[in-house]
């Protein structure tokens, strides 16, 4: 309905047919992309869900340990103990391409190699609970980083799926029907033109024949009259 004001010419018809073909091919490709992305996305989301549940649970345990530790120490001593970290973490990020969506891949390197050497404080002035808490947090952190990676991937994929879905729908419900409508309109118009040309030619032929017939009759009548006089 929308672009019914197209020129009903053969040239326009060819152009529209090409456009329809492209649109249909694009629609198929995008649909395939959407389906595959959706599959990947759902896998990722399931992973995110389980990992998030684990991380949240473990973090709550860690927070609990910290609460116990801070109950046993003054908050100043606690702050002092954690003030200057021994460990430092470097994060490197590369990207991975999943169905044309760039998702991050994180890798982290710690400065000190051994896991037992991460306490930034002396053991004299701090409680043992703090060691447990820091240790547990170190373990959770591995999972937290993994969570960050897949959760971000899921977010980016969700965006891409939404975009692709919109495109597929736009092609399927707007672009392709409109083009088909326009093609039908032009075809009908051209056929109509053809028919009207044919009828016009037939009419002209009729008229010419009638004229010729009358001429012939007049001539015949003249000859008959002359013959009668003689």
């Amino acid at each position, binding site marked *: 309905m929308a672009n019914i004001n197209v020129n009903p010419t053969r040239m326009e018809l060819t152009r529209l047919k090409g456009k329809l073909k492209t649109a249909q091919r694009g629609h198929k490709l995008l649909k395939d992309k959407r389906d595959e992305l*959706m599959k990947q996305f*759902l896998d990722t*989301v399931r992973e*995110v*869900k389980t990992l*998030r*549940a684990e*991380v*949240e649970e473990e*973090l*709550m345990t*860690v*927070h609990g340990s*910290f*609460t116990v530790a*801070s109950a046993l120490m003054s908050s100043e001593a*606690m*702050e002092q103990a*954690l*003030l200057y*970290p*021994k*460990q*430092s*973490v*470097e*994060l*490197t*990020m*590369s*990207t991975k391409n999943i169905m044309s969506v*760039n998702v*991050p891949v*994180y890798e*982290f390197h*710690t*400065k000190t190699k051994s896991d037992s050497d*991460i*306490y*930034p404080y002396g053991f004299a002035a701090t409680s043992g609970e703090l060691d447990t*808490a*820091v240790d547990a*947090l*170190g373990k959770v*952190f591995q999972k*937290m*980083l993994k*969570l*960050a*990676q897949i*959760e*971000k991937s*899921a*977010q*980016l*994929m*969700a*965006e891409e*799926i939404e975009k692709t*879905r919109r495109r597929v729908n736009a092609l399927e419900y707007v672009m392709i029907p409109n083009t088909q409508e326009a093609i039908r309109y032009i075809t009908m118009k051209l056929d109509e033109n053809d028919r009207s040309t044919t009828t016009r030619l037939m009419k002209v032929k009729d008229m010419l024949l009638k004229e010729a017939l009358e001429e012939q009759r007049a001539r015949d009548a003249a000859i008959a009259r002359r013959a009668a006089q003689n």
Partner: protein
Amino acid sequence: MAVTTYKIAVVGDWQSVMGFKALGLNTYPVTDSEEARETIHRLAKEDCAVIYLTEQLAAKLGDVIDRYKDEMTPAIILIPGREGSLGIGKSDIQRSIERAVGADIL
């Protein structure tokens, strides 16, 4: 793809973030959501790839989280703060499913 070094930040109330300091992460203790908002915007401009944010703050910073959701960096990941999980992290996953599929299917 060039591999660059990034920072990991933890934003939250002091009680919740202090532990991460021992691990060598960059911690940003904040007291209210306005301060957290500014911190996140600043960190996003710097080379910060992952920001862990406590759910207690995230509850008031929905707009900031949505703003960075579609960008490669930073990834804002919600973690439960000391007061416990509010379930925002879980419902965020739900929201991204709804966004992708158009319906809640899981």
